[in-house]
């Protein structure tokens, strides 16, 4: 808001005001006010708040998994299988039954939440950072940097991510870390493209011109003057990003290309239950429902943030 005022005044004044830098104080204040109103708008949306609550509950369950889980999630209990080696239905000992190896499903769901949320959040942090940096420098500098990065974005955007994940899993030993890297490396492009076009117009605005005129370096302009404008976009995209990263982790783990066994992941639990889905659909149903609820919640929060941060 501060900057749109600045843009309206004649160029000389803009430079003068940049020289005396009232910009910084005002900007910090304006940004804080903007955050407050955005939060107020978000809070009024009942659906978004409900989704946030659901996410909070899952985060809590993930953190408290060691306390809440009735059993060791990776231990196959001898009394967890029927005599002919089939998984058990729900009982007092195993509230949601056992899986094909006699492990407690409830405990695995709780520990699976840890994997899903950790991978989702870390991959998102990484991919938002990548998208911001690569988008900003390609939009700001132009030239060869621009050509190389936009080409890379186009190429990766038109690529089946899942196949790349399979290839990475064939080459590296799959682990939580490689899963996070694969997800981040294949999901940063959409944000980068948005940032690229935003920076392209932001750098022509008067406040950036004024900063350049008084001799501020390129990197400092990007960091101090342009990046703050990208906050709302980055935050919105991050909410969607966590959801889609969780989904991708589940898909990769389902294909044996993500988090390796015996670690409980909702995706690999579905894979494990696949052999028995006809007799015991619960093995596939529960982890799928957890995934659906969590990812849907992040999508709803993302929509809410988009509306709350966009409306000015």
């Amino acid at each position: 808001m501060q900057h749109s005022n600045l843009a309206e005044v004649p160029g000389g004044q803009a430079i003068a005001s940049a020289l005396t830098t009232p910009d910084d104080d005002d900007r910090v204040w304006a940004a804080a006010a903007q955050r407050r109103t955005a939060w107020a708008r978000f809070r009024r949306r009942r659906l978004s708040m409900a989704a946030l609550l659901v996410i909070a509950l899952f985060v809590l369950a993930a953190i408290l998994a060691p306390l809440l889980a009735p059993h060791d999630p990776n231990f196959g209990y001898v009394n967890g299988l029927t005599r002919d080696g089939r998984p058990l239905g729900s009982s007092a000992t195993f509230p949601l039954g056992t899986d094909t190896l006699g492990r407690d499903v409830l405990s695995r769901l709780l520990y699976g939440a840890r994997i899903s949320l950790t991978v989702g959040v870390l991959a998102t942090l990484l991919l938002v950072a990548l998208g911001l940096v690569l988008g900003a420098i390609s939009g700001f500098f132009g030239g060869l940097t621009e050509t190389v990065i936009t080409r890379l974005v186009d190429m990766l955007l038109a690529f089946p991510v899942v196949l790349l994940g399979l290839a990475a899993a064939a080459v590296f030993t799959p682990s939580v870390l490689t899963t996070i890297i694969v997800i981040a490396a294949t999901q940063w492009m959409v944000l980068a493209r948005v940032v690229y076009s935003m920076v392209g117009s932001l750098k022509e605005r008067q406040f950036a011109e004024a900063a350049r005129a008084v001799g501020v370096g390129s990197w400092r302009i990007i960091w101090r003057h342009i990046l703050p404008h990208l906050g709302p976009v980055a935050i919105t995209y991050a909410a969607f990003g966590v959801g889609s990263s969780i989904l991708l982790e589940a898909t990769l783990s389902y294909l044996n290309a993500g988090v390796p066994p015996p670690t409980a992941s909702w995706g690999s639990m579905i894979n494990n239950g696949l052999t028995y889905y006809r007799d015991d659909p619960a093995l596939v149903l529960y982890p799928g429902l957890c995934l659906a609820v969590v990812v849907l919640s992040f999508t709803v929060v993302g929509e809410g943030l988009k509306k709350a941060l966009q409306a000015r």
Partner: protein
Amino acid sequence: MITYLTRRLFGVLVVALGVLTITFVLISLIPGDVATFYAGPHATGQVLQEIRRELGLDQPKYIQYVRYLWQAVHGNFGQSATLDEPVLTAILQRLPQTAMLAAAVVLIEMTVMLIFGILSALYEDSLIDRLTAVLAALSVSLPGFWIGIMLLLIVAYKLNLLPLGGYDNPVIAYLILPAATQGVPGGFWYARILKASLEDTLHEDYIRTARSKGLAQRAIVIRHGLPNAIIPVITILAMDLGSLLGGVVVIETVFSWPGIGLLAYQSLLNLDVPLVIGTVVFTAIAIALLNIVADVLRVVIDPRVRLA
């Protein structure tokens, strides 16, 4: 047109070079000795040496890289480690099934999109509009493989209406479930995009003219709005080719549909690295080519677009 196509085909070459470079780096990063993998754990040192020479592994990395590119130019992506046939042959054999499934998915997507996109634009805030919105949100939140398993369980196993996956005659019976698993959710997602695009179009002047002539809302939306509103949606559809094929890969594994995705998955389980890498390179180049086709099609649909 000719200059355009040459330029775009050059772009495909760049993509191919990029993908081949990435895959070469990936292969070089494999821990351990590839020769041991081919020869098995009990091979003698001499046999290993011979295999290394045969695969060019005794050469410096940059020569290996040039050799890798040279082989790829000749359509040689190596020999499958498990199938006893060249990688390219194995992939080409599965191509028709994958193409068929992808085409069926797009067909279902377009049908669902047109029906629900138009209806939700016509009857704003009606039950059908809200239902479409909810289903669109669900479609990006539910894992495709999970939807597939649930459909298998209910439609194929409990109700016994369709076969439990696989590929046989009549193909259509085996095709319906996998295609619907991906096509129906995708269709609702695109229906939302079509609705938004229709709303934008309906603010244009020529629509106001049509309305002032006294045309019914239905005629305005379908005859006047749709042809313009659908163009950005088609652009998005073309951009989503990668995720379409990515989805097909996963769906194939759920339904044991013998396409490229199932091939890639099985080769991963068998640790058949050349074959997995081959599917990646092949699909990347195929998508780059398909994007050109999509661009040309856009010109055919919309005379305002110029190839540049």
